């Protein structure tokens, strides 16, 4: 987490690739031409950003609806603060949970502090998985809800200003 922030040239590379990699045979050479630097420099900088975690990964981002995951449930749980790290680690380790976070409550409207994302091909499948989380939490679960996504309203990812 202490990686130094990116420099100006890294930032230009982010700007040039945040919309996607060029779909050409030599994409890093095309970026090099565009940025007027050497292909080696592009390759080294991308590799460094991948190493330091500035780039999480390089690849395809599927629209999960289009690949069959029509049910996407954000399950949210009110659990005791002093237990949340242990419970979060156990819920996060379940193979069907794709994201798991401790987030602040927004009282009184929002009492939940543990968020676990569950994907499935139907709401029934997601609900069955949510029931398995409820069972794991047992008496530590004071309240919970599951919010299903009904529409992707925007999905552009990061956009730095030019």
């Amino acid at each position, binding site marked *: 987490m202490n990686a130094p922030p990116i420099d100006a040239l890294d930032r230009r590379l982010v700007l040039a690739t945040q919309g996607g990699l060029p779909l050409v045979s030599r994409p890093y050479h095309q970026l090099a031409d565009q940025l007027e630097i050497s292909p080696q420099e592009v390759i080294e900088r991308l590799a460094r950003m991948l190493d330091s975690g500035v780039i999480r990964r390089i*690849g395809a981002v599927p629209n999960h609806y289009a*690949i069959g995951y029509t049910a996407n449930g954000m399950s949210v749980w009110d659990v005791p603060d002093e237990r949340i790290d242990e419970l979060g680690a156990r819920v996060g380790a379940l193979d069907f949970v794709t994201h798991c976070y*401790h987030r602040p409550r927004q009282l009184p409207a929002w009492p939940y502090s543990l968020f676990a994302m569950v994907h499935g091909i139907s709401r029934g499948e997601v609900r069955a998985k949510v029931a398995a989380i409820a069972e794991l939490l047992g008496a530590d679960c004071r309240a919970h809800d599951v919010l299903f996504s009904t529409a992707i309203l925007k999905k552009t990812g990061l956009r730095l200003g030019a």
Partner: protein
Amino acid sequence: MATIDAVDRAIIDGLQGGFPICERPYAEVAARLGIDESELLARLQALLEARVLTRFGPMFQVERMGGAFVLAAMCVPEGEWQRVLEVVNGFREVAHNYRRESDRNCAFNMWFVLATESADGIAAAVRGIEEASGLPVFPFPKLKEYFVEMKLAVRA
């Protein structure tokens, strides 16, 4: 829903990470999949056009660049949905936005992620959206991440 054949499936399942950084990365991946480089490029193009893929390229962690990535939500009355949606999506800082509903009639129905280049940018974006929409924005910054892995096999 777009039709996805076995080759598309192999591309999507095999390419959610680990795309090589080398002179001809598509050729390398195509060889692994047993297809030509030109076929891989054409299929990626088609999958993007059909919106089966939303992007192809690097996924950045803005926190590692000194910025911030924060989930936020709003309770939007039905009659104001379209107006508020346009306001919220009009902000460049909004990276993703989802409509959500619960069985318990939870009023938090618009959930979006704010991505900004500096940590201060989040508060400014929250204020900006509140002023432009006239509705409160509730930020849910992550206090701790227990697990993150977003690699889903094709089930279509």
